[in-house]
């Protein structure tokens, strides 16, 4: 092939352009630390990239949902713990009272104690987490129950402003389209179980200083206590489950982060090695071009 001056020049320019383009690209990748500068850099990996990004962001949200759920469950757990203690104290009083002879002066002290216990249990039923009354369900900003004199003596009733509430489970999404119920049905625990009626009955029996009546109430009180123990066990189990899922998500996140790093982070070692070799080529091209282009017959004829 016949070689002409222009051929040399054209080839040199094209090669230099190619080299400097590659050097600029590598430099950009190294300085930014990212190899996916534009969506056209690696279109075949975009799908994976987006799916990992989406999963990471969702996991973050699920974590936040789980934390929120755990604080609700912890609120319920301590509420049931306190309720259990209240019931235990009531049972202790009932046991002592039933062993005391009728008309003993001790009954008055017992009655006062039971009254305090009723108030304590009302507080328990009105437990709030983050300004939400957890047993009020869909009307969470309003207290669940209150004590009122309904004409026929003291009674504990659901807050009248939320009586129209349809009870549903308050849930937290913890995995894609998988939810865990973090609420407990306050109505069945505190109202339908008649726990307050039983405590008020106890108080009435104590006021009446009737030890046999007190004795008859003990079975109901034990049943009520068992309800709270069961609910507490359920809250604990759910809380454990959430903690476990949180650990699973954290492990998955670690793996996702690793895959993401593989997709978008520049492998500095490879890139710098490549850069060094490209720069060597570029410098060699420059020096060789400078020498070759100078060669001309003109240098030798006078």
């Amino acid at each position, binding site marked *: 092939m016949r070689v002409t001056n222009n051929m040399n020049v054209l080839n040199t320019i094209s090669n230099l352009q190619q080299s400097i383009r590659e050097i600029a690209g590598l430099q950009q990748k190294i300085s930014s630390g990212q190899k*996916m500068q534009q969506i056209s850099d690696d279109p075949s990996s*975009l799908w994976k990239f987006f799916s990992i990004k989406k999963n990471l962001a969702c996991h*973050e949200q699920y974590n936040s949902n789980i934390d929120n759920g755990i604080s609700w469950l912890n609120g319920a757990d301590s509420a049931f713990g306190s309720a259990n203690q209240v019931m235990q104290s009531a049972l202790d009083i009932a046991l002592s009272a039933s062993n005391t002879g009728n008309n003993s002066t001790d009954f008055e002290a017992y009655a006062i104690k039971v009254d305090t216990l009723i108030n304590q249990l009302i507080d328990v039923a009105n437990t709030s987490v983050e300004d939400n009354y957890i047993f009020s369900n869909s009307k969470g900003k309003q207290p669940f129950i209150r004590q009122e004199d309904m004409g026929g003596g003291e009674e504990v009733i659901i807050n009248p402003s939320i009586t129209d509430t349809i009870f549903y489970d308050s849930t937290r999404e913890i995995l894609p389209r998988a939810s865990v119920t973090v609420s407990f049905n306050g109505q069945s625990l505190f109202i339908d179980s008649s726990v307050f009626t039983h405590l008020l009955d106890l108080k009435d029996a104590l006021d009446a200083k009737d030890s046999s009546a007190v004795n008859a109430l003990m079975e109901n009180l034990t049943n009520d206590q068992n309800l709270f123990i069961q609910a507490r066990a359920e809250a604990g189990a759910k809380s454990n489950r959430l903690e476990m899922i949180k650990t699973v998500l954290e492990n998955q996140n670690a793996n996702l982060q690793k895959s993401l790093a593989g997709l978008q982070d520049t492998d500095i070692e490879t890139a710098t090695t490549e850069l060094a070799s490209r720069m060597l080529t570029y410098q060699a091209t420059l020096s060789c071009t400078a020498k070759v282009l100078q060669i001309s017959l003109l240098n030798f004829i006078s």
Partner: protein
Amino acid sequence: MSGTFSGLEIIRRSLSSYQQAMETTQNNIANANTEGYSRERAVLSATGTSLPPSLHHEQLNAGVMIKNIQRMRDDFLDPQLRANLSEIGYWEEQETELAKVAFLFTDTTSAGVSSLLTEFWNSWQELSNSPQEASARQNVAQTAVDLTTYLNYLTSQMEIAHTEIENSLTSKVSEINQLAAKLAAVNQALKKCVTAENNTLMDQRDFLLNEMSKLSDITIIINDNNTANVVVCGKTIVEGQDVTPLSENDLSSGKGGLGGLLAAKQSVEDYQDKMNLFIQTLADKVNEIHEDGYTLNDAQGVAFFDLQDNAAGNKEISVNEDILNNPNNIAAAKGSSSPSDGRNATAIADINDIADYLELGNKSLAGYYSQLLTKIGSDQSQAGKNAETFNSIGLQFEAQRQSLSGVSIDEELTMLMQYQFSYQALSKAMSIFDDMLDTLINRT
């Protein structure tokens, strides 16, 4: 028998031939860097006369003459080279235009629709955890505004890209018409030419044809008088010295810069359609669930997103004014009079996980969007790779063309020296002949 002065005549003719040969060499050196120039070579040939055999049997030598000035060019290489120029034009234009669209999607390096979309769904999750919190409601409204603002920005930028392509098309069409006018002028000159071949005009013609090939995959017909006719997209725009200007309506898909712009225009329109469908589906799905729910004030939910067609027929999305003015109008509850109910918010957040929307070809919203981005990215990267490939093939063709038609200065200098020596030798011969005649005429 030769005449007394025939030797002088041989030398005179030869001297003038070498002078012309040297001029050709000088012209080559002068045009070494002229684009489209083809090297010329003086073809030397011995002249002689054979007198009629009846009189003499010897041949009379008459020195050397320039048979012709040969234009060194491979006519078979040109069509290949031009087809390749069309490919380069096609892919380079596409890459340039598609790059302008691809740059808009910054999802891989910073925030983009994908991350804003996830934030939007997460804000609904957050709202479902605490439906009565004003901050959670405000957050949903804010992330929705961020998302719609960015979507509208993308829509408007893609419209700008589309307009730019149309403008480029107009200017490229006028460019090819200008070239056509120049070619017609060259054709006219070629027609008037006395000599059969005019190297300079033919170089100009070929250069113009190359330039036109970059713009479109033109069909070229070379006539007997070396003029060229050009057909673009089935329309003869140059016929001899007549020009029929190309208009934008004549364009059909093809190669070259014009074909590349047309293809890029179609691609961008396709992206716009997909983007519109994405926005439409997003709004429809969110609105559908939102309208089913109840607000904090226990009213039925309104449409969360407002959709409008803008002047260019693309979707413009915005958040309902009522919601922006009062985030309590966000319908987070599924049941009426249940302010702490976040189930509707959960249902909206769950749109993110629905992976089989029929409208989107059984894809999720995020999946559809990332598919769109993959398409835009791979279209641009493919165009770039093809442009690179055809450029390197072009380099090979150019090298081949240069190999034949290009000027090598060293070679020309060598030829120049060769001719110079011949010239000097002839001059020497002239002075010897002069001596000879002097002896013959003056001293005898």
